[in-house]
């Protein structure tokens, strides 16, 4: 699904060069649930932004679902992002003056679906996250957990191949976080590949594989049991 080979990302200013990623190698298979951990400034976010085609990399190769993204122009990258990727952010990132229906509608508009198909997909996605009855509500009328569910519905509505989640439970209390995590596990169980950045070791152990990043390089790969439910059973143990 995702393969990065010898990838580097350098931020340059007039004075200094900062290597966010160097010699970065990762391969995520279809259907995997991979968590990415690492200390602040280790390059997790740069990795996720590059994986999400929100930033360009400096050197190396990145193949997303069989497509080499190097040298793609903005239009092609945007189309690929829209078709293959779904995003979930720590801050939910819903558009406040759009209803839940219209928020979920945003990526579908860019995909060019007709009105009937968009409506069906929006209703399905919101039903999946348990918010079908609140389509006309606005984000401010929902709790944090509910807002994150809407963000998940928005990410799912376009049937992405890869879901990129940047600390999706970081702004939620324990109960809400658990609910969101269970929802992500369900989505993964239905075949969607998930790549999740987290600081929470408990969440990391629930994934099939944890990738630890230090100083812009993958320092450790911990392969967990192949099923999530096994991982759930192993909850309480810490990744090495």
């Amino acid at each position, binding site marked *: 699904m995702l393969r990065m080979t010898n990838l580097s990302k350098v931020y340059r200013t007039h004075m200094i060069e900062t290597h966010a990623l160097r010699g970065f190698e990762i391969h995520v298979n279809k259907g995997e649930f991979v968590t990415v951990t690492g200390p602040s400034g280790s390059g997790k*976010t740069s990795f996720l*932004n590059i994986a999400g085609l*929100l930033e360009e990399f400096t050197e190396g190769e990145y193949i997303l679902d069989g497509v080499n993204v190097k040298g793609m122009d903005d*239009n092609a990258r945007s189309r690929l992002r829209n078709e293959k990727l779904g995003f979930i*952010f720590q801050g939910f990132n819903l558009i406040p003056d759009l209803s839940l229906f219209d928020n979920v509608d945003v990526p579908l*508009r860019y995909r060019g679906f007709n009105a009937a198909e968009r409506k069906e997909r929006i209703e399905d996605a919101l039903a999946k996250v348990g918010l079908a009855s609140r389509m006309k509500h606005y984000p401010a009328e929902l709790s944090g957990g509910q807002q994150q569910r809407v963000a998940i519905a928005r990410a799912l509505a376009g049937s992405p191949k890869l879901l990129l989640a940047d600390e999706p439970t970081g702004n939620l209390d324990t109960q809400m976080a658990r609910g969101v995590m269970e929802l992500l596990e369900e989505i993964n169980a239905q075949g969607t590949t998930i790549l999740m950045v987290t600081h929470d070791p408990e969440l990391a152990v629930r994934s099939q594989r944890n990738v630890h990043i230090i100083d812009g390089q993958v320092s450790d790969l911990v392969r967990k049991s192949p099923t999530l439910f096994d991982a759930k059973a192993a909850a309480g143990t810490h990744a090495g």
Partner: protein
Amino acid sequence: MFQYYFMLGLRSLRRNPALTALMVLTLAIGVAASVSTLTILHVMSGNPIPHKSDRLLVPLIDVGPLLDYTPGDAPEDVQMTYTDARNLLKSGQGERRTAIYGIAAAVEPARKDIGVFSAQGLAATADFFAMFEAPFLHGQAWGEAEDASGAQVVVLGRAMAEKLFGQTNPVGQRVTMMGGSYQVVGVLEKWIPIPRYYRLISGLGSFGTEDEYMIPFQAAINGKNQNNGNTNCTANSGAGYQAFIDSECTWIQFWFEAKSSAERATLQTYMDGYVAEQRKLGRLKRNVAPKLFDVMEWMEYNKVIGNDSKLSAWLAFAFLLLCLVNAIGLLLAKFSVRAAEVGIRRALGASQREIFRQFLIETAVVGLAGGVLGLLLTFGALALIAMQSKQMAIVAHMDWVMLTFTFILSVAAAMLAGLLPTWRACQVTPAMQLKSQ
């Protein structure tokens, strides 16, 4: 996507209502200032008779003296002498010909309830009505025989006909005026060409005046009617009416109607020959070729639109530019708080081009709102201008062309102002915005 972006634009008007209102108002004031001055220019400069304006031709003969003359000087006057008018009327050139001058008459109504009043009219030949397509309500123009004999017949303007005879058809009735009894042969519909191109040189101005009656040119000459308008004499014309009409004073406006625009060259050749002949006879002193002007050229030559009108239009556009600079600042402020939304949309698959489209359409919606308000302000401004004078009341009105132009100007201005803020919105780095949320 246009419909989607348009709907987003409408919603966006509700976001930051104070900022939006300020933007719409800024744009509306700029648009109203430009459109109201342009409306007046548009009406003033319109072609009053588009289908034949290139066939209606004014000959200009320079009859000025040699004293103080430098070759290349403009003629003393743009009107014609009686001698030339009479000769050209007889020339048979063109399809139609007419000579016009203004007259003022004391009218003595048959009705006892109206006292004697003064009315302003025209002396012209019968061709006048067909040449300028004056619309008849009753009756018709007089004929060639009346022209030749100078018969006392009159065509009344509608207002004067109603004043004298009420709503009845007065054709065949008689009107006592200028000491004679004139038989009514026709009544015109209300007819106010804008501008009054057929007689630009008069004390009445080019706009908003209606001739109250018309009598045959020869009847006016026979009746020794003085010109009620501008008369230009470069030498003493001598005593008496006959001496005046035989002099080189200019006071008549003359028009040819050519059969086709191609006949203009024939008329020019004829006029060249005529002027050469008159110079040979010793009448014309200056060695200047005669000129022909069609309607639009004639209006341009006579500066129907004065330089002050053009200057005010430029000033109004400068003001619009100032408003646009303000609008750019306001749009920058409005769009700067939308960086997070841009980041989200980019992450969800919007290309920079799509963001550009969305924000540009959004500014177009602001432009439309500015256009609606601008239109209301323009109507207000035109109403104020119309209150200045009767002439301004005629030109200060809006037509469909200007109404459409108002919206186009407003939307184009808004989009122009929106280019920089929109471009800046497109430059948002989505990754930074998404993380900072």
